[in-house]
């Protein structure tokens, strides 16, 4: 498996890296290495342990077990700044610079040249910044304020800062997620330049095309464990996706296109040309009464964006949505809810539940909000309503007055579902409803979704786990780069064949 460079000494050598969060093991005995002058990619789905490994490497997080060696020496960093001083610099997706200061300051902050009386020598500071930028072939006015530049330029400035010390390892965490095509090319030019200088670059991105374009080697993680380290040239794209998702060899199944139902009356919600940039562009979806539409796509394909666009959470930049054949503008979640289109967010805590409020209050919240402030649901009725949902969905413990934050993940999800179902919706969009839930509760929720459809609801079921998309979905929409590229019936489909569709790109067609 470890093919080349066996003779060379790795610049970075992580062995047996383990990180635990309370009871969860985020990283479990992972080995990882990087060589000078290579671009290395770290791949894995959400929760694979990528971020944790990066944090451990860059001093943002301490290892519970294992060690990090830099140039053969064991190193321990208390803060990211310590790591930076030792030669490991990081540029995060959310650029950690100061938009209110100048480009020069952002590069030189904390080590500005000073004159004899101890005042900052601005001319020298600008020169230093100019040189750092010029070394990357960038011409950016060092005296300009960082925030006035587009994100791509800010990203390049962040890289300039990162390498303006004696950098050995540069970590780029999702650096391209908000860049357009041209900007990515410019970034890649800089990366190649650094590589030529012998810097080891860790490139983390969910864009497979980019990984294949720029990276020499790929390390794959899954569920906090190491899957393996591969040469990019020797790893087929389909194999990479399989390793990330944990599937065995692929079999490209014969696929048949499913025609949208001719009977228009059964279409509850139909979306055409839905666009919310960045994220989804020109997506078409039809939801049918009594059917579960599974949505499958890789991370970054626009799964969540699609859900938010269909439910009035994000405003459409283009496209139309028809509900029961009538064109509707979903200007707010409130509007969508009143039209019977409800959304359960993948972020239960931040976008779903009101943690400090009770189970009862959480269940009745949306219904109460629909009725308005004055038409309060009588206490007895609230209790009856909540109790019936607690029983129907088997929420445990069946204590209506307990703060919802104290419930387990699965039961929290059920409370959120109960809130939405209390509205008697027509369309329910579930984004990762089973994430972070134990196996038993997961099956319960999957079965529940099926029952909902049997009762005439249109359900959209989004999940990163293809197995459950297939299990729950009547049809499956394949999402790539923010577009629905195909809709196929799940019957006769295997996870492997679905995987092939999800991972396929134009380049792979042959």
């Amino acid at each position, binding site marked *: 498996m470890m093919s080349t460079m066996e003779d060379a000494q790795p610049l970075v050598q992580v062995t047996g890296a383990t990180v635990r969060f309370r009871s969860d093991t985020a990283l479990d005995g992972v080995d990882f290495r990087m060589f000078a002058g290579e671009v290395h990619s770290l791949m894995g789905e959400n929760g694979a342990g990528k971020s944790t490994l990066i944090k451990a490497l860059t001093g943002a997080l301490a290892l519970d077990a294992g060690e990090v060696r830099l140039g053969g020496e064991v190193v321990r960093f208390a803060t990211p700044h310590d790591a930076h001083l030792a030669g490991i610099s990081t540029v995060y997706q959310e650029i950690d610079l100061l938009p209110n200061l100048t480009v020069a300051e952002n590069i030189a902050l904390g080590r500005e040249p000073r004159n004899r009386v101890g005042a900052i020598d601005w001319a020298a500071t600008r020169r230093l910044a100019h040189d750092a930028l010029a070394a990357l072939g960038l011409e950016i006015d060092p005296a300009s304020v960082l925030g006035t530049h587009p994100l791509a330029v800010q990203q390049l400035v962040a890289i300039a800062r990162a390498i303006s010390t004696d950098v050995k390892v540069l970590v780029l965490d999702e650096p391209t997620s908000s860049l357009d095509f041209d900007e990515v090319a410019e970034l890649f030019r800089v990366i190649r330049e650094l590589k030529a200088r012998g810097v080891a670059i860790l490139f983390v991105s969910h864009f497979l095309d980019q990984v294949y374009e720029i990276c020499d080697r790929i390390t794959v993680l899954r569920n906090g464990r190491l899957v393996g380290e591969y040469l990019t040239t020797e790893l087929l794209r389909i194999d990479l996706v399989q390793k990330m998702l944990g599937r065995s060899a692929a079999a490209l199944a014969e696929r048949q296109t499913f025609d949208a139902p001719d009977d228009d009356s059964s279409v509850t919600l139909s979306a055409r040309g839905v666009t919310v940039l960045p994220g989804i562009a020109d997506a078409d979806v039809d939801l049918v009464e009594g059917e579960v539409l599974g949505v499958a796509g890789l991370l970054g394909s626009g799964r969540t964006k699609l859900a938010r666009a269909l439910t009035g959470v994000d405003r459409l930049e283009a496209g139309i949505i028809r509900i029961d054949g009538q064109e509707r503008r979903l200007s707010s979640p409130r509007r969508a809810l009143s039209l019977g289109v409800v959304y359960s967010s993948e972020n239960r805590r931040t976008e779903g539940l009101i943690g400090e409020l009770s189970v009862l209050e959480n269940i009745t919240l949306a219904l109460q*909000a629909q009725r308005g402030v004055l038409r309060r649901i009588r206490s007895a009725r609230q209790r009856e309503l909540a109790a019936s949902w607690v029983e129907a969905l088997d929420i445990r413990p069946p204590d209506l007055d307990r703060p919802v934050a104290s419930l387990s993940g699965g039961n929290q999800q059920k409370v959120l579902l109960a809130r939405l179902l209390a509205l008697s919706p027509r369309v329910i969009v579930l984004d990762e409803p089973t994430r972070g839930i134990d196996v038993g509760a997961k099956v319960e929720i999957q079965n529940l979704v099926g029952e909902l459809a049997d009762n005439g609801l249109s359900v959209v079921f989004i999940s990163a786990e293809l197995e459950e998309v297939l299990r729950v979905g009547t049809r499956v929409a394949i999402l790539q780069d923010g577009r629905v590229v195909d809709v196929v019936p799940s019957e006769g489909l295997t996870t492997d064949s679905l995987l092939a569709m999800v991972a396929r790109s134009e380049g792979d067609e042959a």
Partner: protein
Amino acid sequence: MNAVMKHRLFWPVVVLLALILVNTLSRPSFVSITVQDGRLYGSLIDILRNSAPLMLVALGMTLVIATRGIDLSVGAVMAVSGAVALQIIQDSGDAANPSVLAVAIGAGLLAGLACGLWNGFLIAVLGIQPIIATLVLMLAGRGIALLITRGFITTINSDPYKFMAQGYVVGLPFAFYVSLAAIAIVAVIERRTALGVLTEAVGINPEASRLAGVRARGIIWGAYAASGLLAGFAGLLYSSNIMAADANAAGLYIELDAILAVVLGGTSLAGGTFSLAGTVVGVFTIQTLKSTITFLGVPPAVTPVFMAAVVVLVVLIQSSRFRRWVGRLGGRLSVRSAQPVERTEVAS
């Protein structure tokens, strides 16, 4: 017993009772109530009477704080409403005419409501930070009040108006009934309609509330409107007490007392679940504290030093960092226990 101790009102009530106990021990006359002409007199009755303006303001502040906001302008609003009412009475030349008084009181309340709506507009619609938005009115309000009174301290002589703050009904001060009525009305509106729970939802998690279809904007706006209206009424009580509209002195620092009362009552400044009962206890605590300070012979002007001490104490107790720090100190004194390092970060 344990359940009682865990109740959110336990500590606020304990503090209030302790304060009353200390007072009683140092001067038994504190709890004595005398009857004269069918009216009750005594320190406790004074506390009930004098706390009325603060009670009104603190109730409004509770609602505002529940939405994660703050209203610094309440003192200035009091000045405005008092000025409006008294100027109308003075200009009418007939200070005893009930219809004049009704118009004056109505106009004063409307002025307060208008101020609250203005604050709410800046915060809920324009999205300006509450501290700053209400600072604008805090600055300009007293100036407006001075304009209304034409730069003077408007004084009137009207027995019916005086009755509001100084009159008695069935042996108890009328102002106390005003407090009771305000508490009851706010409690009914918050807890008998869905306003209370929706306000808490918006205060705890604005985004989740939006996704659940809660009209956050209207709720926040309403909270500031209520605060303005209540402050308006407080301004009327204040002016009735001194029978003058003093734009500079009316409600001076009351915003701070009100915030303190809310916090003492166990409502967090970070917004969310609020307790009207806690605020009521907090108001009585502050009023008792003030009475204590006066009794101790400290000039009322020095009261702020005690208030500073209370503020620091309360915020420190609310600060998790301080509690951890104290806990560590305690831990060092007792048996050393190896505590696992708590991780706040989450894997991703």
